[in-house]
């Protein structure tokens, strides 16, 4: 069978094989593609991402075409460097960061329905930002980020503790608990916001939106890059940790340390994205699941795919959001929330 056919065969097989249906993680992963093929696919996906990013550079209210750049039109070049490039770069980084955070959380809890959205992390980050605004009214972006990070880390710890105490229950029960946990956190923030009369403003800040990104106001998002690299190095360890404390210790792993590194990476990424853009729900949940349906569960191999898919997905959603009601914009938080939510529902209904 030629490689193309074997890919199609595997795709069909993968979607029909119950073991690959989300909700059931199985150890090992049976991704049997050669190195060359893997590279070819990564290259293909990167190309798609590149094309989308290029499109993203030229979509917007100000009419900028590729000729302006060739002709060195200073006015338009400045616009590209101040607004379009930062926006596209932060879209890509946020997409990579959030989808990989989702993947780590899924590995650590061995549950495919866990992600920053379904574990209350997003709500915790919101709460952190609100707390920083209340406690230190003139706080800088860095202080806000620190608050968001601390809250997210703590909430993730609590969530993992909860998952431990309900581990052997229904797969669907875990995200349910996480979503309720998030609901409680957000009801506390809303309560605080009502007393300060800032509900509408708070919702406006927290809605994921890349339109306000300008040079000098987005650099904090680079903080999530080291976390992403760390994730790549630790990928396999997270899987082992997800199999339980005893199992991990038997294999000679420092359970606590690896767990904390995982939480650290996730919290760092989530809070950085939250500060820069706002909340983008369901991305971390949907992307790893789609990748796992197509490419399997060997995360050392699928990690690049998750990253590429996540960023492409985010860039495309942002482009659509910019075009639908041009010259206005639909915030990406809502675009991804709706599209991702629908995909999540489909995944739920498909699983047996």
């Amino acid at each position, binding site marked *: 069978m030629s490689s193309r056919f074997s890919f199609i065969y595997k795709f069909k097989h993968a979607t029909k094989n119950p073991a690959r249906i989300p909700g059931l993680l199985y150890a090992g992963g049976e991704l049997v593609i050669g190195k060359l093929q893997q590279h070819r696919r990564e290259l293909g996906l990167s190309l798609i991402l590149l094309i989308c990013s290029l499109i993203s550079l030229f979509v917007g209210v100000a009419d900028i075409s590729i000729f302006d750049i060739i002709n060195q039109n200073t006015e338009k070049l400045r616009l590209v460097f101040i607004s379009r490039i930062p926006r596209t770069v932060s879209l890509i980084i946020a997409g990579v960061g959030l989808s990989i955070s989702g993947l780590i959380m899924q590995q650590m809890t061995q549950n495919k*329905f866990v992600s920053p*959205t379904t574990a209350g992390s997003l709500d915790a980050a919101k709460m952190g930002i609100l707390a920083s605004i209340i406690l230190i009214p003139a706080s800088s972006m860095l202080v806000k980020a620190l608050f968001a990070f601390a809250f997210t880390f703590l909430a993730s710890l*609590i969530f993992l*503790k*909860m998952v*431990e*105490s*309900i581990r052997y229950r*229904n797969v*669907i*029960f875990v*995200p*349910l*608990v996480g*979503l*309720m*946990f998030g*609901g*409680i956190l957000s*009801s*506390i923030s*809303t*309560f605080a916001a*009502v*007393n300060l009369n800032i*509900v*509408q403003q708070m*919702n*406006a800040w927290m*809605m994921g939106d890349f339109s306000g990104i300008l040079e000098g106001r987005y650099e904090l998002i680079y903080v999530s890059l080291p976390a992403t690299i760390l994730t790549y190095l630790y990928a396999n360890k997270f899987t082992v940790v997800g199999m339980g404390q005893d199992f991990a210790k038997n294999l000679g792993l420092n359970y606590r340390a690896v767990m904390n590194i995982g939480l650290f990476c996730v919290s760092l990424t989530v809070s950085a994205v939250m500060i820069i853009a706002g909340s983008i*729900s369901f991305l971390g949940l949907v992307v790893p699941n789609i990748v796992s349906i197509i490419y399997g569960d060997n995360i050392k191999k699928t990690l690049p795919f998750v990253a590429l898919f996540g960023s492409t997905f985010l860039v495309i959603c942002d482009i659509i959001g910019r075009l639908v009601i041009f010259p206005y914009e*639909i*915030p990406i*938080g*809502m675009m991804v*929330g*709706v599209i991702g*939510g*629908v995909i*999540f*529902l489909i995944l*739920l*209904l498909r699983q047996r």
Partner: protein
Amino acid sequence: MRHHRNIFVLLAIGLLGAVALFMSYDLGRGWEYALGLRSVKVSAMAIVACCVAYSSVTFQTLTNNRILTPSIMGFESVYMLLQTVIVYIYGDQTFKVLNSFDNFMLSVVCMIGFAFMLYILIYRKGKDNIYLLVLIGLVLGILFHSLSSFMQLIIDPNDFFIIQGKMFASFSNINKDLLGYSAVIMVVTLIIGFRLTKYLDVISLGRDQAISLGINYQRMVQIFLVIIAILVSISTALIGPITFLGIMVTNLTYELLKTYRHSLTIAACCLVTAILIIGGQFLTEHLFHLSTPITTIINLVGGAYFLYLLLGLKKI
């Protein structure tokens, strides 16, 4: 049995005491007027208490756990989305165009319609996993929530306060006519509901046991889900969202009453909820002079209790 009777007597005395205190405290000169206002409040609280108690206990039995409440299934998001859409369309004309009775009926119909769509979607697919049902309801709820928060962003800040008023359950400004309608719907639903409690006793044994004891499990679950949908819709449309109240009152009741007979648990839970709301309202309104409605405080306390339950301090 004797023990149970004592508890019921105590609860009844507690409720009477709470009502008496709430009605008579610091009446002042215009006592007829104040009494009228307060009796409307008390009746609203009683209706909400019964709705929350029956729906929460039943829902927890169906889902076989102690940490869920039916309102998380998206009812409240549907309600908020509807309110946001109405304000979005009519702006500050909202109160002119839509009186509170129309709004109430529209809300109830939308919420019940949503629940039916959800049930049909799941059961058509041949799935009878109740957790799946709840999770899908919850995810739909989040979708509606993000839609409504997007609309809230582009609403005039002055009009936004109309929505903000609906975000938190409150017992003030309740329309008397609504009270009558909701009382009628609730009583009819509860009469049917209480006749079915014996099936709940069997369902609590677990799905397989219930089936082998000759219960049409799926049909019974569906009937209870419909009852829950009606009760939650009434209470939400009447006063607004109170998500976590159910968790607290059911668990309090389970602590008081160690029985598996649902007719007893539900009745006791109604009393507990009523005492909690009326007593709490009395404390915040007259003693602490807090402007925050009691339901918000209950929501926070209930949420904290949920965390306590989940962190394994208590077996779930």
